[in-house]
């Protein structure tokens, strides 16, 4: 059984990759995918810690995160599709005019 540290390191790596994706990508879909990656990195860390402490609370949290992620994707994609129909682009910089 691999030590918890490895899982946490992998999780950190995934999180960093996701963050770089969010910061560098311009397409809304890609940003979305990167956010998913970050969420999954967090999930991985939660599961790893739950196992190391022998406590199920972390596992429960993972289910909540997954449910939330699913809901977020459903709504987010719908918004992106609607924006694309209207503006023919999903470049988030071009959408800066939507600021309050």
């Amino acid at each position: 059984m691999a030590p918890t540290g490895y899982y946490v390191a992998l999780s950190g790596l995934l999180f960093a990759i996701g963050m770089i994706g969010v910061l560098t990508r311009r397409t809304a879909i890609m940003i979305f995918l990167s956010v998913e990656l970050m969420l999954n990195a967090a999930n991985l860390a939660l599961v790893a810690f739950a196992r190391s402490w022998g406590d199920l609370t972390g596992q429960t949290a993972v289910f909540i995160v997954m449910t939330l992620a699913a809901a977020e994707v459903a709504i987010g994609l719908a918004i992106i599709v609607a924006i694309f129909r209207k503006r023919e682009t999903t470049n988030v910089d071009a959408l800066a005019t939507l600021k309050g």
Partner: protein
Amino acid sequence: MPLYLLPLFPLLGFTLLILFPRLFPGKAAGWLASGAVLASFVVAVLRYLGQGDEPAREVLWTWLPNMALGANLSVGFWFDQLSAVMALIITGVGFLIHVYSISYMGHDRQFTRFFAFMNFFVAMMLILVLADSYPLMFVGWEGVGMASYLLIGFWYSGRNSEASGGDLREASDREGLANSNAARKAFIMNRIGDVGFMLGMFLIYRLYGTLVIPELAERAESVRVAVSGIELACLLLLVGAVGKSGQLPLTTWLPDAMAGPTPVSALIHAATMVTAGVYLISRSHFLYDLAPVASTWVAWVGGLTALYGALSALNQHDIKKILAYSTVSQLGYMFLAVGLHAYSAGVFHLLTHAFFKALLFLSAGAVIHALHEEQDVRAMGGLRKFMPFTHVAALMGVLAIAGIPIWSGFFSKDAILAAAFEADPLLYVVGLGVALLTAFYMGRWYFLVWRGEYRGHVAHPHEADGLIKVPLGILAALATLAGFLNVPTFLGGGHAFDDYLGRAIPAEVHEIPVSTEWLLTALAVAAGVCGLLWALAEHRRRSLANGPLGRLSSNALYLDRVYDGLISAPSRAVAEGLDVVDRGVDVTFGGIARNSAAPGGLFTRWQSGFVRAYAVSMLLGTALILGYWALRSIGGGA
């Protein structure tokens, strides 16, 4: 025929024209407005024919609670001989001026608006003269003030404000500014008088406990109050009358009121507004009879104003300004008469003046029209050849105002001079001198405009059209013949007008021997004839323009400049000082406001709308918080 119909018709005309101007294309608005005034005139005539000796009072509805002793003040109209005369003048002469305006204002862009205001003017004046209480009279009083403001400033942007040429536009802008200033001047000077009227009303209410005129007349006879109180109330009412009638010292707005279209000048000067002061004093005769000092003041204000107006008229160059100063002077005569308790003579002069001054103004308007807005008499002359009809009409007016026998001004002026002779020789001398000056300046006006060589710029001045000629003809006939309404006894007449008005205002019976009356008449006629001959001599030699008297007259005795120095300049200095303070306060508070708003502006920069910029700031924020906790736990835990 109920009395409220009199002001109602023109008021309806005003309402229709101001609310639905699109409904009256072309000249329909003018005909509607004229019809409304004509309807009022018919009502006035019918009421006059059916009038008994007893005044009629018709109460419409209660108005101000507890304003009369034990009762509410109501909106009511009062029709006695005095208001009958006034109503007939206002509607009759007003109607003729309306008809004239249809042609005169025919090419104006604001044709409908003009007639709406004219109707409003007539309606308010009718309310003023028919009111049975001072507060209701005050409503009409303010109404005519408003109407005169609107009409004097009628060309508030100049007559050529839509012209394409740059020079023309600029001249028009300047003219518009002058017109607006004239309107403001009239409005403000009238407000000064209104303060006097209001204070007078308050004082009368304090003294007698009522402001209803018939009740007040009864009380003035039976209730004893301090004479000084009545004197003061009468002097305050005089201030109001002075403001509205352009008497000294509030006279300078009246000549400036020439900025309005010519029919407006005729309406203000002949039929309506400026006679309101004379009417107010005649209407309050029962108070003035108890106040000898105030009455003397009225007489002297009138006498001096008559002199001032006549001197100022001597050397004016604007065809309408001469007539305007003449109005000031003639109103002075009326004040002189009513101040001497010769109310009948004053009101009779008001009547004849309404005819001949309206005639003169409308003739001047026809001339101005024919010469394409030329108003300087130096650029006229010899118009008798081009406009024979208007020439004869204007000549009738000149003879009437100069006091030549059989023309109406002769009879009315004679009555005033007789009253002055009886009361105060000094006032009589002033009156006679003014008669001479009147004949001179009107003669000068006549010769400069109608005789001699034509000096104008328009190649062929044309005679006016029928709509202008008919009112001129009617007014010329009235100005010539109206004097026979009141032929005095020593000339074999029956004093018809005195008797008629005497039923409303007890006439002062003056006792002058017949031989003296003949002498007075001869002197007055001699003054008139001498004035005209002097004008003829002046016309030949032209010596007035360069003399000291001419300069004094051209500048209207410098009264405007005196006011400018004494009142306007100090007021402007105070205003400029206050302006500096105001700006200082403004800058201070503006600075405080800007400094408190500035930090907020920094945060708005952050709201760029770039999603990744937000993500970076989230990342940095999180890193900062994490770093802070890390430092703390290292520092504290180790």
